[in-house]
């Protein structure tokens, strides 16, 4: 296959489309990989979704995948190129977590999620930009410069998986892996008009994921369609002996749950999630999506989550406390940036002072404070107790309904620079997403419209722990009949 148009056409394909095209022999993995690499060359100068690409390795792997297919290999992702958020370790490929402190770090092993993609035949196109150590909601906190939203280059792509979301939205990859600690898969998916799935805590191994908030972090797919998210989750999910916080439960065939039939599904609408401060167009789009779900036969049930307002403060205490402990490992001795302190403590102070950016320092400071003598009970322990109350809210809600529906984010993509100087305002953009992490729920964001500036709007479906089949089925039924995915950004 040749010709720029044909090549560009290939880059509009999602994972399932790629898989069908490769299986039928319509194109080869080399064609496909080359098409995405060319697209990256053409548009990424404007988007900055990638921190680095691996064209030589990708093309070599593609040629190998084509040979394997000729020999009868039928692995589910054979020859499909994907992008990986730079907080996931990749053997032999520099991994920085968007931080100066890890500049030049080449991991000796891969994250389990990445390894499972590779074992299923997938090819890595490159590593995508992220807020430093995944700390942020706009990708502006990357030490390597921000990623821009493909729908409007003056806007943020969301974060922290903004590079992955922008790459998928800009047709630079058919799909990508992101990570979600407080909304970092779902919110950028919403801002970029695509699908983002946060699996239940314990569904996907965190081994090789550079730790931020260990009781909250999950790896999740960022895709063009719900079917693609289901397929990728099938590949990356499951217990892992190298992560004792993976749940020893079976991985369902998520793709089989996508029937399009949601008659009788009980959808809860948390009253506390429709409050002042939501952009009117977002509320309007989500309310009309609710009507759409009803027209598909779902039962709409108002529910209460009384402790909603406490979720963000609890999240910020828990996540920063965990971060301050996790980031203690960056001491300039075993890997990463290293200063020349005269004493060992000087060495630590200077390495960390020079290597971490402002947001990371702020969160380490906040977490250290919340854990320090005299404040532990008042902040950290208290936050963990209120976390229990937030979980109980969801337990009650899920005894009445199958899924919960809300906006993914209170606004569409905001302007680059708009919130960088106001950490609290930035935090508030996570208002609908952090609860799912605190309670270990699964959640998915799917496109549900556009605002007056042609920026995408996303709706969020939340399910109980290990309820991915239900939220995927609901998201799929909506996606297939609402058809927002037919629009794509002009680049």
């Amino acid at each position: 296959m040749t010709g720029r148009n044909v090549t560009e056409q290939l880059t509009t394909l999602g994972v399932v489309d790629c898989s069908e095209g490769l299986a039928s022999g319509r194109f080869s993995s080399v064609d496909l990989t080359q098409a995405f690499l060319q697209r990256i060359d053409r548009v990424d100068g404007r988007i900055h979704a990638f921190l680095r690409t691996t064209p030589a390795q990708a093309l070599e792997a593609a040629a190998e995948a084509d040979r394997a297919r000729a020999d009868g290999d039928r692995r589910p992702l054979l020859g499909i190129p994907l992008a990986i958020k730079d907080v996931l370790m990749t053997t032999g490929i520099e991994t920085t977590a968007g931080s100066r402190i890890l500049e030049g770090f080449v991991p000796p092993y891969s994250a389990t999620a990445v390894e499972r993609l590779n074992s299923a035949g997938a090819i890595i196109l490159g590593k995508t930009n992220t807020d430093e150590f995944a700390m942020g909601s706009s990708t502006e906190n990357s030490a390597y410069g921000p990623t821009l939203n493909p729908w409007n280059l003056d806007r943020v792509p969301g974060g922290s998986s903004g590079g992955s979301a922008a790459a998928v939205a800009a047709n630079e990859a058919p799909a990508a892996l992101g990570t979600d600690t407080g909304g970092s898969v779902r919110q950028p998916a919403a801002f970029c008009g695509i699908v983002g799935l946060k699996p239940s805590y314990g569904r996907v191994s965190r081994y090789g994921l550079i730790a931020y908030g260990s009781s909250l972090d999950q790896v999740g797919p960022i895709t063009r369609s719900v079917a693609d998210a289901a397929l990728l989750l099938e590949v990356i999910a499951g217990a892992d002996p190298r992560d004792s916080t993976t749940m020893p439960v079976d991985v369902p065939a998520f793709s089989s749950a996508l029937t399009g039939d949601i008659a009788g599904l009980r959808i809860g609408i948390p009253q506390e999630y429709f409050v002042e401060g939501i952009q009117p167009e977002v509320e309007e789009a989500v309310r009309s999506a609710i009507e759409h779900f009803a027209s598909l036969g779902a039962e709409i049930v108002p529910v209460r989550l009384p402790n909603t307002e406490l979720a963000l403060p609890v999240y910020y205490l828990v996540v920063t406390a965990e971060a301050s402990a996790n980031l203690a490992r960056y001491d300039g001795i075993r890997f990463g940036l290293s200063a020349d302190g005269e004493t060992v403590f000087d060495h630590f102070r200077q390495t960390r002072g020079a290597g971490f950016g402002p947001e990371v320092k702020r969160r380490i400071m906040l977490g250290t404070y919340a854990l320090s003598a005299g404040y532990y009970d008042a902040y950290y322990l208290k936050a963990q107790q209120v976390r229990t109350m937030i979980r109980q809210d969801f337990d009650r809600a899920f005894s009445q309904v199958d899924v919960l529906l809300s906006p993914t984010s209170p606004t569409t993509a905001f302007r680059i620079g708009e919130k960088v100087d106001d950490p609290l305002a930035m935090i508030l953009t996570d208002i609908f997403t952090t609860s799912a992490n605190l309670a270990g729920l699964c959640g998915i964001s799917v496109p549900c419209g556009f605002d007056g500036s042609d920026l995408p709007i996303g709706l969020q479906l939340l399910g109980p722990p290990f309820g991915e089949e239900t939220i995927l089925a609901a998201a799929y039924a909506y996606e297939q009949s609402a058809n927002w995915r037919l629009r794509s950004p002009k680049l």
Partner: protein
Amino acid sequence: MNLTKDEVAHVAELAKLQLSDTELEEFSGQLGQILAYAQQVQSVDTSAVPPTPQVLPLTNVLAADEASVSLSNDQAVDNAPDSDEGYFRVVAVFDDTGA
């Protein structure tokens, strides 16, 4: 609520984080602002509520005590800023006066 510069400096020392004067200044305002927001949790009655440190119904997950392949010594020190004969080299922790 603002943290004093001394309080910020104390926390920075606990975190082994060198901060510039400007950062100390900035953080005393910003951390105070975020803490004031986080303080909402303190007004909640949690007297009978157990804490949730993590959400899974798992405790004491054990692995079989079996040897398996791990990183080689070369791989383990490969990213080290300074290493010597397979060891990480660090600044001396104790001074040489024996004190």
